[in-house]
């Protein structure tokens, strides 16, 4: 089974469970509190996923390994290379 089919199957199982609970298609006679919690669930899961993505991006931006020494060393090497090539006749 392809990944697409797996995801579609999983999503349809979740959505049909949600539909059954929200529209009371099985007449389960649950206390109405649970219906109140169930019906915003798809939107809630999307918002939670968005928050998780935002937090992950923000955290990885804040903890990114900058390598300042390597950067300065590289820039010095570029300057040196430019000087060397100009001496040998290459026009920049």
């Amino acid at each position, binding site marked *: 089974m392809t990944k697409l089919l797996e995801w579609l199957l999983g999503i349809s199982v979740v959505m049909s469970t949600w539909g059954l609970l929200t529209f009371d298609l099985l007449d389960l006679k649950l206390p109405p*509190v649970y219906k*109140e919690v169930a*019906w915003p669930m798809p939107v809630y899961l999307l918002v*939670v996923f968005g928050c*998780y993505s935002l937090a992950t991006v923000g955290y*990885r*931006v*804040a903890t990114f390994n900058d390598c300042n020494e390597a950067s300065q060393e590289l820039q010095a090497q570029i300057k040196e290379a430019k000087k060397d090539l100009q001496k040998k006749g290459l026009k920049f």
Partner: protein
Amino acid sequence: ATGVDQVVGMGLVAFSLILFSYYTVWVIVLPFVDSDHIIQKYFLPREYSVILPGVAALILILCVAFIGAVTWRNRKPKKVD
């Protein structure tokens, strides 16, 4: 990462934590709380917990479409000088 990067990054983390907490209380905790409890006045009616993210998603899609349209309109023929 240093300076502005750290501030922006941790700001995003803090914002998403606050948003997650508020939204979780709104959607999952509040139905189990008495309707005359003091906490209820800090939250909008339940319908807005679906309407507001819907509107936000719509605005996001409009922004993406706008950027895409402007980029498409500004595309130049193959030879880029």
